């Protein structure tokens, strides 16, 4: 069956099963490889994309459920002002190690900052706990989110 979805501002028509998850439509049909497969069950966040600005797990989102909502992926998030700031902060802080989870991290962080311009540590925990970084770059993820928000990061880790 064919579905027309809007991905990063462009309408794309795909001929796939309706229960095919958006992740695999993006990766294997539309050749957008930035969203990653980690667990297939919504437990790791590597596949996070935005539907109308909301962070969702694309591995748990059947393509038939997308409808007219706007899909934004890591390939398109830099076109939004918040996404661009988050990417720049990720580079400045040198967050990645292996980098595999970072697309999902950036998508979740961007969704957080779009709603909460100056998040507390608890806000960050709540928004980011669904995104696993197996290299555990969490200290830098937290710092980069605060940097992208224009917050002071100098006292991080004081005890």
């Amino acid at each position: 069956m064919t579905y027309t979805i809007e991905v990063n501002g462009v309408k794309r028509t795909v001929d796939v099963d309706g229960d095919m998850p958006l992740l695999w439509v993006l990766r294997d049909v539309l050749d957008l490889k930035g969203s990653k497969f980690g667990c297939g069950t919504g437990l790791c966040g590597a596949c996070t994309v935005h539907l109308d600005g909301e962070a969702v797990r694309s591995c748990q989102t059947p393509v038939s459920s997308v409808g007219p909502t706007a899909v934004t992926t890591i390939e398109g998030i830099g076109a939004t002002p918040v996404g661009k700031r988050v990417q720049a902060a990720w580079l400045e802080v040198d967050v990645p190690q292996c980098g595999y989870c970072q697309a999902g991290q950036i998508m979740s962080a961007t969704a957080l900052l779009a709603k909460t311009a100056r998040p507390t540590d608890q806000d960050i925990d709540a928004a980011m706990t669904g995104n696993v970084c197996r290299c555990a770059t969490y200290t830098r993820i937290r710092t980069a989110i605060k940097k992208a928000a224009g917050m002071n990061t100098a006292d991080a880790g004081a005890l």
Partner: protein
Amino acid sequence: MQTRHLLSDHPAARRGSPSRRAFLKVSALAGGGLLLQAALPAAARAALAAASTPAFVRIAPDGIVTIMAKNPEIGQGIKTMLPMLIAEELDVDWDSVRIEQAMLDAAKYGRQFAGGSMATPLNWDPLRRVGAAGRQMLVAAAAETWSVPESECRTSSGTVYHTLSGRSLTYGALATKAATLPAPDLNTVKLKDPRDFKIVRRSLRSVDNPSIVTGKPLFGIDVAVPGMLYAVLEKCPVFGGKLVRANIDAIKALPGVRDAFVVKGGADPKGLVDGVAIVAETWWTANKARESLEVAWDEGPGAAQSSGGFAAGAAALGKQAPAKSLRADGDAKSALAGAAHVVEAAYSYPFLPHMTLEPQNCTAQVHDGKAELWAPTQNPAPGAKLVASTLGIAESDVIVHMTRCGGGFGRRLLSDFMAEAAWIAKTVGAPVKLLWNRQDDVRHDFYRPAGFHFFKGGLDAAGKLVAFSDHFVTFGNGDRIADSAGMDSSEFPAGLVEHLDYGLSMLPLSVPTGPLRAPRSNALAFVFQSFIDELAHAAGQDPLAFRLALLGPETRVLPGSADPKNPLRAFDTGRMRGVLELVAEKSSWGKRALPKGTAQGVAFYFSHLGYFAEVVQATVARSGSVKVDKIWVAGDAGSQIINPLNAENQVQGAALDGIGEALGQAITIEGGRVVEANFDAILPLRIDQAPPVEVHFLTTDHPPTGLGEPALPPVVPALCNAIFAATGKRIRKLPIDPAEIKWT
């Protein structure tokens, strides 16, 4: 990921050619420029027993220097760091450097692997010599051009200067001429005084980060080859099981499925084993088809094994004398009998998975007796060898592209997924991307082996440790210890306690085991540094002071039993004392007034040539839930921290990795199979559990060593020791069970 087909024109065809013996090969680039290729002689190698380290540099007429990154990138930052060494001695600006990932090509690059935190010690000297040789040739080219002595020339930022005449020429302008000059002797090229370093010790960002944050295809899973199909492979859940029959015809009839077939493999889990391959037009279709798959397995004798059975077997063996002695200093039995105070404790730890976030995968195409693979591998050369033997083709007919790896942790040192992809691609006759799902990845790993330790420690009336014994019950078949399941006879505190016994017994095992980040050390640190802590408390001494007393006031160098002649493998008590004192200072050890339920714990460990002492501050709620408040790390990895920005990242990640293992990770074996399947049962650390990690390096006058692993082992006992200090409950079994540490 854009890919190129290189079957017809690839350096693999040249493998084994005389270039392996070349000392330093120089050639002109088409269109001008210098190509510098070096295969270092044995004499130039570090004191470590490993392969030589050639490198590959290209200088274009416009001054852009392209450096090949020869080793696999798994997140350890090596793609950035190794080229830094060449660029430093070549004396070019980092901004003018471009980095390209090398393919597998042993003739050109020597050993290409990511393991053992060995890239720094193996490459620190040789790669700087490559850069220095290039610089020397560019200086010679300039001197010849100007008819001046080389000694009057100096270099800076990719330019040669003749100060007396005020002349200068860029490397780009000199490269073509330099390519015609004889190559210098790598053993005698002049290296910079470390005081003059401009790139080493600079915090440089990882070169792939701009691609990572914008979602560019970099990883094995991102590879796309024209005409590629997607495959899954269903294997027997019981290790060693054989396939009896499967409903292949029904699977083949499913929409979107292009092929399905039985794979008949061998008995070695490191290679191809029995399974059913399903090949489809999309990966999702192939994976979904497994829901309709019906397979009858002959589970074999492995089905009788279980975690409960291992524990019972270990408990029985622990009551007996060890089957084999590893070390016997003095007379531990008599010393324990005569000790003023004897402490006995049994410790254990579980099997652990690697759970790289990028599941195992490989893309392969096979035709005309040649195989080309795109593999996220830590160890491409053994992978190529395995593919060759699996397909029955020559190793020289296997081409391996190394992709970026979405985590390694030791899992991708094994090459099973490469053999599978190659076999499936050959059978299908089309390019195939094999991708495991998470359940495959958790249930078909090479696990960190579980283990059991039965300790006794004897203190004299003054609280000094005078006798120590460990009966280690591990796994093995016949006389052969399972992979990564051994222990060295030099394990601390060996050599520092007068009467000491180490012995070992083995339980048979069908579960495949292998190296997990800081192999052996990640488990041994927990048991030894926890038991040492028990002894400190029994002696009524501060745990940090007790450890300092054990190390002693004078520096001693105790040879490592695995590699006794290698000075870097020896345990230097002074270096450990140094980091222990540093971490005590930075954490304000013993000086903090902490509320009930909150405490600090300390531990140290020497592994992968690095000395690390760590303090964990943790808070245990009355319910037993654990919150790690902060980690302080002090590390000694030699004279230079090459890229401080990445070094800190590695150390923080390693410490947090250990916290994750201790809090939530165990593989359970029942009926010969793994019970856990995904991240709801085997718990990776999450951001709300991750405390700040403060990292301090002590630089000492020793060769630089690696940082991928050595910060991990001590954090586990440091956490457990903090929990004891907070609650009075001793963790003797991992992972930490909140029900066991409730307090009132």
